[in-house]
């Protein structure tokens, strides 16, 4: 008698896993094999002593699909913990991008001005190019990159989202 709501929503999930060979392939294979979306995926070792890595996944789906994704992740043998940051309350998410812009004259000055507004830093510069480093949530990075487009955007490298719950509680 349960009725399901069919609306898709974006969800950020943090997964703590054993840092062992193949673990990332297992997670990615799970998403591709079952047809789930991956909007962003970030992974790095976070505890060298215990050999634990943290994977942050941004995905979207109906509530039933999101529940299924979490249950499927929990079932993987090397997974310690799965946490739905979107559902569990407030969290901070950040992404870093390196943005290369090639321009001269007015456009070059304008790109610097925009960078200042977005608090992007210049981390490399030549007479005809800049590399900006920008940190923020995904929306901020998207906006910055969009503004750079007409100003000589050459290359973008993004890290994907890292996220953590607000407050004192650990994962």
């Amino acid at each position, binding site marked *: 008698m*349960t009725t399901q709501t069919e609306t898709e929503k974006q969800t950020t999930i943090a997964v703590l896993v*054993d840092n062992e*060979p*193949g673990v990332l392939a297992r997670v990615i294979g799970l998403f591709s094999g079952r047809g789930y979306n991956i909007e962003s995926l970030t992974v790095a070792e976070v505890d060298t002593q215990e050999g634990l890595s943290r994977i942050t996944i941004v995905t979207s789906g109906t509530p039933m699909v999101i529940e*299924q994704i979490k249950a499927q992740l929990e*079932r*993987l*043998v090397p997974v310690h913990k799965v946490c739905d940051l979107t559902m569990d309350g407030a969290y901070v998410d950040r992404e870093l991008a390196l943005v290369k812009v090639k321009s001269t004259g007015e456009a070059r000055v304008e790109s610097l001005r925009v960078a200042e507004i977005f608090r992007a830093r210049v981390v490399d510069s030549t007479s005809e190019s800049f590399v900006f480093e920008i940190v923020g949530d995904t929306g901020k990075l998207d906006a910055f990159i969009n503004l750079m487009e007409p100003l000589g955007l050459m290359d973008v490298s993004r890290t994907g989202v890292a996220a953590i719950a607000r407050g004192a509680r650990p994962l």
Partner: protein
Amino acid sequence: MADDQMNGSQILLKALEEQGVDVIFGYPGGAVLPIYDEIFKQDAIRHILVRHEQGAMHAAEGYARSTGKVGVVLVTSGPGATNTVTGLTDALMDSIPVVCLTGQVPTHLIGNDAFQEADITGITRPCTKHNYLVKDVNALARTVHEAFYVARSGRPGPVLVDLPKDVMTAMGDYTPVSRVTHRTYKPRMKGDINLIRRAVDIMAAAKRPILYCGGGIINSGPAASQLLTEFVRLTGFPCTLTVMGLGAFPASDPLYLGMLGMHGTYEANLAMHGCDVMVAIGARFDDRITGRLADFSPNSTKIHIDIDPSSINKNVPVDVGIVGDVGHVLEDMIKVWKAEQASPDQKALAEWWKSIDRWRARDCLRYENSTKVIKPQYALQRLYELTKDRDDVYITTEVGQHQMWAAQHYRFDKPNHWMTSGGLGTMGYGLPAAMGVQVAHPKALVIDIAGEASVIMNIQEMSTIAQYRLPVKVFILNNEYMGMVRQWQELLYGGRYAESYMDSLPDFVKLAEAFQAVGLRATKPDEVDDVIREMIETDRAVIADIRVDKLENCFPMIPSGAAHNEMLLGPGDEAETPVAEEGMVLV
């Protein structure tokens, strides 16, 4: 080097011994020669030499399903390993605990496209519950113990351990099982007692309840079947079983409605459709069960008990999901039911049973018998009648019409006596599975109910059966067609039988003889009993070629994409019910 060091192969065998392994199904090759050399030197573990690695996998599945223990397979690298993929997938779909040990090229050659190298952990990642590549001999024993633990715990499944040749010859230390605990994998056994109470309250208020039970009960072990039987009788609720669940509740009990689903009984499917409370116990709402999802049991409150949280709310949203082992949960449920002196509305229940009895009166498994041709259903009924008084009968099947007729007409009162490929539907499963069952139960009557097309897919295992003098019986319902395919072509594709006729079949009697088995044949109904009797009395392997009606269809049938109350009951029904467009794309 400490005195108690051993080489990798010795460590492996010691770990297997400590895990209680008594038999391995395997096939040698270059990468596993060091292991075979150690097998040669010991006699604690028996090795059964199969004729194809897929056969080893299904044999291990049959062994596992009939004993409740973990089945073990050992194969070489490359082609030996890739030949296990179908069996691994089969075991994953049906939740069968198997540990598959594969040889691998030496660690320094991995990634070099070395001779007989295959990235088997990469290939099998999606078709195993978990897999390991062992690169350090000192991690070997722990990994093997972990593999067995993962294979049998929680929702069981296949686990693969890839063993590079140099690791198997290197010297290292043994880690006993007592020193191995798993860091992350700890499935929940006990169900949440508050949810169990809620479930009991809902059941106690039910007017039209049904218990829909599946393979999870068999996975949990014979105690769970006992508890289920107790619970069904305590509540007086009707009980139906999936193909995978057959035997979990006695088929002879009047509370049993038969199998449900695509080829299930009229009464079971209509009860599922019309119930007000459904309790799914160790069953996973497979599409063969639900039919068209939007019309699946539209007016019921649903309770689901499953050890795997991902099974709950996967296909069908439920109202109460209880994560835990069915044995544990049923035990608590019985306690709560008794403590609360739950007493459902007897009048409503009696009304419900009255409806069910009306549906039963349709006698949906009835068929037109004949005195001229052998009806496949008749052959199976006779097989059942002539074997039902023994308590050591194990039935395996291949895949197709014969499988569904076997599920409908052979009646099981106990768990672990029925092995079939449900989830993957693997033709070629039944013969090697029967072989595995017979290895585990040497004196039992093990029968592979087969189709002539399927059995050819792993017919080479007749040679293994000959070598170990396994008295396996192959009961072929020979309709000269891939009958299940032909049936769909008849019902859905205007009778255009594209490539479903089995031309140039072997003479199965001569084939039996070529494999040192006994070949029997029945072509008329009055020969069936004699052939069955002779088959049972023969203490060697037998192939019985039962020539059945070529064009018989398996009914009842819910066409794919249809709802439970849109069932085809027999030949007369065919014309009236066109299959909808959406249904045509489903399998």
